[in-house]
């Protein structure tokens, strides 16, 4: 008897096709760029649920490009950004960073990835020796760990351990006042979420020893549905929830949490509420304990307000935390290039180390690049949400003296110093 094969797709070939399709879909899209002037490569997450990270970074850099070119550029040459979308894939971020330097001819890098991508880009920078500023990675180890720190890479961004100290001091005081001892955590399942949550808990328990974590949840970055996470959290009946979700993920979490009346069952605290997220969430619950990522009213100075308004005027939307960090990165580059009179990685590294810039985003009007390649002195405050502008009220400024003190202690524990 002869077996005949039916025309069409077999199950095996279909499965193989699905695999090939999935791999193809995950592949990147690479754009082209012109090859004039000083090219500055920037790769980030420019699509997907956390595209806000990349787009608000790009918006800020485009404002900076115009500002710097209007004042003569770098070393008398105009600058031009070349933007690439890594879609949040670390291997793609590394590939794009290398391509931006080797193929596109970029002479400086702005790495605006989330932490997962920045760690991959760090190794490319170490290999190429080009100057690079990480503008969005908040994972402390990127610069705190001397084995990971790269000679020509710097972080111009808030840092997990700084936020952890500042937030823990504020939340410990808040929890003591409200008698909140049973907490839950819910953070994205990658380096930033896990490391920073651990840091928060370490300091939180230090400042409030009777705190108990009754459950934790680790949704994937960009996960469309948080239902099972929310029900797990409500089952554990914590008095308060700490979350590091951000951008579209935070918006989806709040919307889905509203369905389960999550915000009436527990107090929620997050350091990650940005203006566009606040604006996008249609039913923002009041009373969420929140850090100021970027707030026009904090620091309450004319320079800060002016910067926020200029950004809004250009893009018809409010800036994010990532916006000010990228703007500040260009301020550091500008000042360092003038000082070094060069674009060379080593020369710029020497100029950047210890540099202080005047900026609207500093707690005292200045921000310093410390010897361990990370910024200190930026404005950190905590307050509570309100559904209408200014969205966060009763903001209390963090004490940088305490932040440095506890950061140093943490670095010793980690054997970084």
């Amino acid at each position, binding site marked *: 008897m002869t077996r005949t094969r*039916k*025309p*069409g*797709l*077999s*199950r095996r*070939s*279909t*499965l193989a*096709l*699905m695999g*090939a*399709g*999935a791999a*193809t*879909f*995950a592949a990147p*899209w690479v754009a082209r760029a012109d090859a004039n002037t000083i090219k500055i490569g920037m790769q980030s997450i*420019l*699509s*997907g*649920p*956390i*595209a*806000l990270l990349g*787009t608000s970074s790009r918006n800020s850099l485009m404002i900076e490009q115009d500002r710097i070119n209007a004042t003569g550029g770098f070393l008398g040459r105009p600058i031009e950004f070349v933007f690439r979308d890594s*879609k949040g894939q670390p291997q793609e971020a590394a590939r794009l960073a290398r391509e931006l330097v080797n193929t596109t001819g970029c002479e400086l890098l702005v790495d605006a990835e989330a932490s997962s991508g920045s760690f991959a880009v760090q190794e490319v920078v170490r290999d190429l020796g080009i100057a690079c500023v990480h503008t969005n990675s908040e994972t402390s180890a990127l610069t705190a760990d001397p084995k990971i720190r790269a000679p020509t890479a710097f972080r111009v961004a808030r840092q997990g351990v700084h936020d952890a100290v500042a937030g823990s001091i504020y939340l410990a005081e808040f929890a003591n006042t409200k008698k909140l001892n049973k907490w839950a955590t819910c953070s994205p*399942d990658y380096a930033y979420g896990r490391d920073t949550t651990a840091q928060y808990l370490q300091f939180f328990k230090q400042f409030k020893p009777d705190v108990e974590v009754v459950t*934790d*949840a*680790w949704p*994937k970055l*960009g*996960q*469309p*549905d948080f*239902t*099972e*996470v*929310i*029900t*797990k959290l*409500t*089952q554990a009946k914590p008095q308060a929830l700490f979350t590091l979700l951000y*951008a*579209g*993920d935070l*918006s*989806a979490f709040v*919307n*889905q949490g*509203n*369905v*389960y*009346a999550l915000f009436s069952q527990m107090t929620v605290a997050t350091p990650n509420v940005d203006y*566009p997220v606040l604006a*996008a*969430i*249609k*039913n923002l619950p009041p009373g969420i304990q929140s850090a100021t990522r970027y707030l026009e009213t904090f620091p309450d100075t004319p320079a800060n307000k002016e910067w926020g308004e200029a950004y809004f005027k250009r893009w018809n939307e409010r800036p994010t935390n990532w916006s000010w960090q990228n703007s500040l990165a260009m301020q550091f580059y500008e000042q360092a290039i003038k000082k070094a009179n060069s674009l060379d990685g080593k020369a710029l590294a020497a100029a950047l180390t210890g540099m202080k810039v005047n900026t609207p985003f500093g707690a005292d009007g200045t921000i310093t690049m410390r010897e361990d390649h990370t910024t200190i002195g930026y404005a950190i405050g905590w307050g509570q949400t309100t559904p209408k502008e200014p969205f966060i009220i009763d903001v209390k400024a963090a004490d940088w003296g305490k932040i440095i003190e506890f950061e140093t202690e943490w670095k010793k524990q980690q054997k970084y110093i």
Partner: protein
Amino acid sequence: MDLSALGACLTSPACVVTQATSGLIVGMLLFLVAAGLTLIFGVLKVVNFAHGTFYMLGGYVAYSTLAATDSYTLAVLSGALAMALFGVLFERVLISRVYGSNVLMQLLICYAVVLIFDDLVKIVWGPEFHAMGMPTAFQVPPLFIAGGVVPPFYAVLIAIAALIAVVLSLGLSITRFGKTVRAAAINPQMVSALGVNTTLLFAIVFAIGGGLAGLAGALAAPVRSLSPGMGFSILIESFIVTVIGGMGSIAGALVSALLIGMVRGFGTIGFPRFTDGLIYIMMIAIQILRPQGLFGRRA
């Protein structure tokens, strides 16, 4: 792994109700997307890699309709109908040209459609996420059944998805059209020889498949963030559903989607750091024990 928490949950009616509802909503929305995918595969033997795009566009169309009309019902209907129409156009203009061609050509066309529409969404709605917000009618406190939490909005979504599952199942098994579709899935040449307009039939199948994905996107839009490329993650899960359930089987898609929903609902209690892993292990186990899937026919 936290088996004691899972055990405590399974012995608590409140926890069982809450997590089962959570599993049902995840499973039923997944079923709506996967049902279209498996229907198209069952009849046309086309693996529609652009299916996630239908889900995404359904959500965006609903988002804009709600903004224009303030009616969630119209928003859902417009999302589903627009994607049914898009399904017909997609089949007639593109897919119909590659029936019987190299399967890589089908993949290439679907991939092109995904990229084109991801970029079009960025141009029309912007690259950043959007949140539709909960319709006013559903801004109500959750129900409590046996101490467990059941959000009214989710109860409605589950009911709609269950109704569609019943209509789809009965429609395919007892109506003349359904019998024709099933016959075409087995032997399209013979169905055509008997005088059935298979061109129209195939277009209708794509309309149903696309419409279901669009419906799922529209129904979920009030609680999920809308962003370009959002169809990709749902596409992967839909493939898992079709592989576990058996490619081409609507009943298989329903059972498989509910299984995945329940694994998510209860897995997050017992295996909080390995819930996704559990789903893939389940898929691998079923592939080993029953390669054609739970309800699939052996080739």
